[in-house]
């Protein structure tokens, strides 16, 4: 099975406090720690496991620059055979549809049976996979937490509210967006990354993808982010302060009062 996995380099939400940058046009990018989008990492692991089972190839694709390439290389070190970079100044400011359109063009350059994306990324929009499927006119399933089967049709599970799992069969080729927890992504060590450090990663620009400049970037965006802001806070929590011992002591008193100690 030929599998394309779309990945994104994002600020690591576990390592960063995200704040609004000067002028409110972007988040503050100083001192941010970046990583592969968590959902995408599960998608790459799933693709590798499928290929281990039924044969084929995994290609990891990302939009962006040399820094995004590091993320692609890290994912290749997990066991993906190929990487692909989509790089062009004309891609700047693309909205979800723009990103999906660029990925569609890249997908049409290959002969993929299956495309995986993460269920969502740092902007929480959860949109690129579904848009990509619609552009390709392939069937789609979101929030996938189980994949079985091989040629022709896959048997998949989707995660619904309350942890219920919805089972379906879906025809190939298709696009699936992957939910976290579907597998246990393998650890990537320095050694693994070194192994793929010199592997050639092809780069395609707008012209190579057959995309007109201006068709997918900020100027073409249908959904425009005007600003970043911190909403006026409500009352919020009563914040306790003091030494560790004082904090614990205050908390014990409050828990007693509120019936938190049995």
């Amino acid at each position: 099975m030929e599998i394309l996995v779309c990945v994104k380099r994002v600020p690591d939400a576990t390592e960063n406090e995200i704040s609004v940058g000067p002028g409110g046009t972007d988040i503050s990018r100083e001192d941010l720690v970046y990583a592969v989008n968590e959902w995408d990492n599960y998608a790459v692991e799933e693709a590798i496991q499928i290929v281990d089972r039924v044969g084929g190839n995994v290609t990891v694709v990302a939009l962006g620059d040399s820094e995004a390439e590091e993320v692609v290389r890290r994912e290749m070190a997990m066991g993906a055979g190929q990487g692909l970079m989509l790089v062009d100044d004309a891609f700047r400011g693309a909205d979800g549809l723009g990103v999906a359109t660029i990925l569609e063009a890249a997908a049409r350059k290959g002969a993929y049976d299956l495309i995986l994306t993460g269920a969502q990324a740092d902007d929480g929009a959860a949109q690129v996979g579904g848009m990509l499927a619609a552009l390709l006119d392939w069937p789609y399933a979101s929030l996938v937490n189980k994949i079985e089967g091989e040629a022709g049709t896959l048997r998949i599970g989707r995660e619904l509210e309350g942890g219920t799992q919805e089972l379906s069969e879906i025809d190939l080729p298709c696009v699936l967006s992957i939910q976290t927890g579907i597998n246990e992504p393998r650890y990537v060590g320095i050694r693994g990354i070194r192994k793929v450090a010199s592997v050639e990663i092809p780069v395609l620009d707008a012209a190579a993808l057959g995309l007109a400049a201006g068709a997918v970037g900020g100027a073409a965006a249908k959904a425009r982010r005007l600003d970043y802001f911190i909403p006026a806070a409500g009352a919020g929590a009563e914040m306790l302060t003091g030494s560790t011992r004082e904090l614990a002591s205050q908390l014990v008193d409050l828990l007693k009062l509120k019936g938190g100690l049995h």
Partner: protein
Amino acid sequence: MATKVFALIAHNAGQPDDSALELLAGARTLFPGCAPVALVAGSGPDVAAAAGAAAAAFGEAWSFDQAQLAYPNAELLRPLLVKALPPGAVVLLPHSTLGMDLGPGLSVKLGVPYLPDVVGCQASEGDTLTVVRQEYTGQVSTHVQAQAGQGAVLTVRSGAFAPAGAGSAPGRVLDKSAEAEGLQARRRFLGVVAAQAGDVDITREDVLVSVGRGIGEQENVALVEELAEAMGAAVACSRPIVDAKWLDKSRQVGTSGLTVKPKVYLALGISGAFQHVGGIKGSPFLVAVNKNPKAPIFQVASVGIVADLMELLPELTTQIQKAK
């Protein structure tokens, strides 16, 4: 107001889901004075009952009654809506697992802007829609703008709008079932598997000590278990802890886990993404401990502490043991 606004109604056993009246309120906020139409797809008496209830609130409902719509499959609903909706339609969906499945592709097939997971909005100015979204699990918000002259698709977060009234007079139900004939899906529904019950039912516990990603390492979960034992409480958690397989899925609080209604809830190292907070009901006394002072959990907590869990937890456990 010429804009045609539609809302997809999720329903169960003939009753519209809570999202229905929230979408109605959202539609009225976005387009004051509009007459939004409820879209109700399903099969048999259930869809008739749900369409009747939706029509009472909305004034008008379109009913799509077809055997293969008995289960809401986005791969069937998408071509159905593309066929049935008039040009220029603005479609509101709940930001649910169904809305997320249906919405992005629907916007592409209709050729209109997509505004996902909307948490607020102002009234449209002409064709210009301006909505509020959140990014980075709620740490920052954004205004997003789109031109809805040709239509738009929005998904609306649960709780973003206070529900509109359910209506008392019967509304008009239009039978649009003919539009649903001959639909073909390349994804076919097989069945659902219910979540498995665990050794402890956290939905029945009064006091929950809930742990999130901020705990750092698997071995640190023991500190949380010791605290819970000292308190006589049950251990719960947020999603990343289950994804990492550190605790069982039956311990997970949130929209993709369990909905709990304790009296006291300790959120330890939990940032407070809406998917987690959405699973905490009944307004408990909520204590949040997080090293990030900007964590959204502090907005919903009763009491907050900015601290390192590794230092606070052992001290807290010791003091509770002494206090008993």
